[in-house]
């Protein structure tokens, strides 16, 4: 493995762009805001690149910056996002042909960004709860409760959609 501080910015950008954008979009559910978050993530990452020691896991490091940046942007634009989400939800529910729409996606939309952040770090970066707590400087109990709440919402989907649908 190549030492992180020795990688050049272009290389890091090339290999992480897609993941950063998708992470931001997963949290924000808005293309323009996801673009802003992606832009800000790389600006922050490049600024602090020389502070990363060689053992740091660059994937996790950049993903964490992306989730934090997306959460900041979410908080700044909360009202706008809530309005757009309401509009989309109303339209899809009013359309009888959209009844079969993937309900899990709607449930993921309802999960707060802080819980999505934990889901990303747990399932995409495969970090343990303790590692997530250390990384985000929050208590282990907070991590556990956020995971529990996120899971609860997703399990509700299981019940609504039926086990077979979820497993599809």
């Amino acid at each position, binding site marked *: *493995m*190549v*030492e992180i*501080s*020795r*990688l*050049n*910015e*272009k*290389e890091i*950008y090339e290999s992480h*762009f*897609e993941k950063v*954008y*998708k*992470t931001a*979009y*997963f949290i924000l559910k808005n*293309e323009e805001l996801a*673009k802003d978050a*992606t*832009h800000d993530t*790389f*600006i922050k990452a*490049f600024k602090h690149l*020389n502070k990363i020691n*060689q053992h740091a896991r660059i994937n996790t490091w950049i993903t964490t910056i992306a989730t934090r940046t997306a959460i900041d942007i979410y908080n700044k634009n909360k009202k706008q996002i809530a309005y757009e989400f309401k509009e989309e939800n109303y339209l899809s529910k009013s359309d009888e042909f959209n009844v079969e729409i993937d309900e*899990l*996606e709607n449930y*993921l939309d309802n999960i707060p960004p802080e819980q999505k952040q934990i*889901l*990303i770090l747990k*399932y*995409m970066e495969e970090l343990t709860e303790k590692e997530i707590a250390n990384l985000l400087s929050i208590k282990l109990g907070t991590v556990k409760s956020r995971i529990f709440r996120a*899971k609860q919402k*997703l*399990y509700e989907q*299981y019940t609504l959609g039926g086990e077979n649908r*979820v*497993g599809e």
Partner: protein
Amino acid sequence: MLENNQNEQRLKEHVTKEIDSIRVPTGLKEEMWTQVQPVRKKRRIPSKVLPYIATLACVAVLIPLGLAVLPFNSEPTPSDVVTTQEEQIKTIETVLQNALNGPDAELKQIFNRDTSIEDSIQYDKERFKEYFANDTAYMEFVNSYGAVLMIIPIRNEYTLQVKDIKFEKTDSKEIIYNFSVEVLYQKEGSEKSDVEVVDGQANLNEDHKIERILIRLNDLWNAIEKN
């Protein structure tokens, strides 16, 4: 317990699927790179330091004037100047040749074998360290160039070869050279090759060691990645 694990697995699959299904807008990656790529800024001199710099500049002007009236002449002869310039150019040329020819078998092995970081540190040290003025200058170089410069050619299976280098000393009081390098790039196993010009700038000290070097590689990387 088993059910729990299955549910956990399903959750993971769903989150992964959800993220994987997100589509990145076409052209966004290229467009955004122009906005986020780091620009090396020149250091601004703090205004508080300016009076000290002015004083030092005056002293720097007065001392040679004072020495000029002494009964000896220490000015370098034209041949001294030529030799010095040759030494300076030799240093830059060696670094550029080492950086832009390759990747050689050893470097390919280092990247493909997933070896320890020590191997690539050693690789850089052997080829570049002696040409730099100090550790900071050397580290700045290997952070951006050195072995990591060859990542894109290795990943795209290209070989680089320096065809020609032109140097031009700037009018600066510091020892600064502009350079342009004709680099031939060729896909491994292909007969076809192309040439791209890479330019840059190097700043040296009095001992002909590099204090800073900038190699503009964007056009070369774009050309390789377009092919």
